[in-house]
């Protein structure tokens, strides 16, 4: 991946425990090489992901956010992923308003058996974020650390 030869960017992934986190594990077990930019946060269900987490992550200095859950109709909790889809679709349209390129955010479906698919998702998204370069939100909000720290204590009051 020549495009990624240089500096890593900061990509945060929110993955549901049952499908996509398992898919990422399967990709690891299968030794499917991926770029190292992505850091994964495990949540029980993609329906657990509050869209505000993503906004907060992007404004705190992340260059990209990837959400991945179970395929539609295949949710461990019957319908959490469909709920997530509704919310994340709305979020996608909202991102330009807060000055974030929509390309910095992506949501996908990857099941626990799809290690190879996960590799492709990570490679594609990482390349997409690298093409966009570092997030301008970094420049606006400074070295994110302080911003993130201040807001860390409170609940979702972003």
């Amino acid at each position, binding site marked *: 991946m020549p495009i990624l030869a240089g500096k890593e960017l900061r990509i945060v992934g929110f993955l549901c425990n049952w499908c996509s986190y398992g898919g990422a594990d399967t990709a690891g077990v299968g030794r499917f*090489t991926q770029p190292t930019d992505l850091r994964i946060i495990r949540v029980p269900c993609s329906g657990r992901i509050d869209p505000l987490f993503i906004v907060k992550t992007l404004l705190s200095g992340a260059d990209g956010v990837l959400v991945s859950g179970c395929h539609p109709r295949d949710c461990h909790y019957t319908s959490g992923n469909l709920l997530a889809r509704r919310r994340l679709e709305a979020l996608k349209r909202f991102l330009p308003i807060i000055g974030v390129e929509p390309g910095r955010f992506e949501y996908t479906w990857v099941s626990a058996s799809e290690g190879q698919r996960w590799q492709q998702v990570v490679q594609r998204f990482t390349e997409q974020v690298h093409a966009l370069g570092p997030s301008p939100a970094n420049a606006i909000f400074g070295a994110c650390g302080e911003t993130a720290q201040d807001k860390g204590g409170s609940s979702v009051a972003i």
Partner: protein
Amino acid sequence: MKIGVFVCHCGSNIEATVDTAAVAEAARSYPDVAFATDVMYACSEPGQDAIIDTVRGKGLDGVVVASCSPRMHEPTFRRAVERAGLNRYMLEMANIREHVSWIGKNREANTNKAAELVRLAVEKLRQDRALFPKSFEVTKRVLVIGGGVAGIQAALDCAEGGLDVVLVEKSSTIGGKMAKLDKTFPTVDCSSCILGPKMVDVSQNDKISLYAYSEIEEIGGYVGNFEVKIRKKAAYVDWSLCTGCGLCMEKCPSKKSHDAFNEGVGQTTAINIPFPQAIPKKAVIDPKFCRQFIKGKCGVCAKVCPSGAIRYDMEDEIVTEKVGAIVAATGYDLFDYTKYGEYGGGRYPDVITSLQYERLLSASGPTGGHIKRPSDGKEPKNIVFIQCVGSRDKSVDRPYCTGFCCMYTAKQAILTKDHLPESQSYVFYMDIRAPGKLYDEFTRRAMEEYGARYVRGRVSMIYPKKKEGGDVLVVRGVDTLLGQQVEVEADLVVLAVGAEAAKGSPQLAEKLRISYDKYGFFMESHVKLRPVETNTAGVYLAGSCQGPKDIPSSVGQGSAAASKVLGLFSKDKLESDPQISQVDIKRCVGCGKCIATCPFGAIKSVDFRGEPKAEVIETVCQGCGICTSTCPQGAIQLSHFTDNQILAEVNALCQS
């Protein structure tokens, strides 16, 4: 708070591409980290002992283990910290193996990423609180879905262990695919002689309630307390009265009904009992062929039935059963052989599937055990078997090896010679896969003792040719060992079709809330170490629904699933997972949004000093957290995955 960090080498799995000592060094600078070290194998006995000793010696409040996926060893390390005297939820894992060391070789980047993941775990742990499970009662009954040999074995073993079993089978008799077989490899045992007694055991065991001709409609609840709705399909015969005498079959004027049991090689009556040894031995009317249903007049069966069991106005019935565990044993279906146009399956009557051939071989089959080709009823002389039809073939989306076709083809070649000593069998194969006990010896016998000619190579096409004394099929293929084209004039062609997931498997998986792979086979919890468990507590797998299996493996897995159920029920009470939602009553405004979104109906509205408030029903909550991200007030929080905990992780990643 004092946190201990243990960075695992996992032998060379992690250490080879991650500088674990440097990760431990970095961890020492993280807030609240009182101790950090790297260990060879954290999950081994010395590794766990080191964790326990350090927790006790240093008075730690929480532990971070940076090693493999928490899906692999979280329970192991939770038990370890519990043994050290901590609450089991004061543990966090950083996945630096599957998500770091195994997916990249750049040691510097990997070390950096691993250190960040440890930081993420530390920040999460700082927000963790002790959680305590509650115990709840278990319904000690088990549901077995599917009455093939795996389901039968699981049901019998569970009943033997003293459990009440509900066995649901979608067709009108149990027995599954095995009941259709004539003989079994590698012993050439008669299939119905070994399966028949087991089927009778099921019907006579008063601990097993059998729902034949029934399907699973809906599954609710959770481990220990499932509520299952079963649809009893309308058989148009009152089974409580039907004695299985078969008089209706004798008199039924509609004799061209599709014979599912005989794989369509024969025809049967519109009202029928699939085979004489069927369990339960009860008649079912097929309304697609019954004249009473098509034309509105006939009623012969109702007239002749000595017990007056016929009910043309019968409707499906839904019954509810409460069980504590579920064994899925839904088996497999055969690959649709008509997809190979070049083989002419479906167009030429003398191209049949191996299971159809099995029915021709069987004494209880439509030809009484005489091999007659479907087109003209003549005895075939040259018989060609083609292996790997819908197996190991990417072009039809079946790249996996079904695993048992090599063996049953060898068996059929042997049986063919027994039935027709003058005949000659040809087997077109890719490789012979015979890895079971006595399997390789068996295929060799087919070649050496029974003279089956094995030709290594694929068949490119089959076409009919007119000939005196009966038409033949020309099978054109290649012998890759000789490196030349071969043509065989065959009287009968048998396609060794591969197995695929049973129709409706994904739908059933959704009802069971378990995962399935891209071919529709159900996924086990761990391929090697938890082969009969699923990721949904209380749901187990047996037989080919997990992947194609031969009879010994299916029976073995049926017993294994039963032993898991018995193990689960060996306790009188189960512990509930405390990772469930909690309502902050002060913040809750009683809007009811959480109640509307909860997929399990685990939240109800209660009256609290005259105001409506949400309340979580603890045993029903599954811990998905959908309510938490729905609540506009942030009043309902999923324990162990609260907003603050997830945001702490976000901060950890965005900080450095």
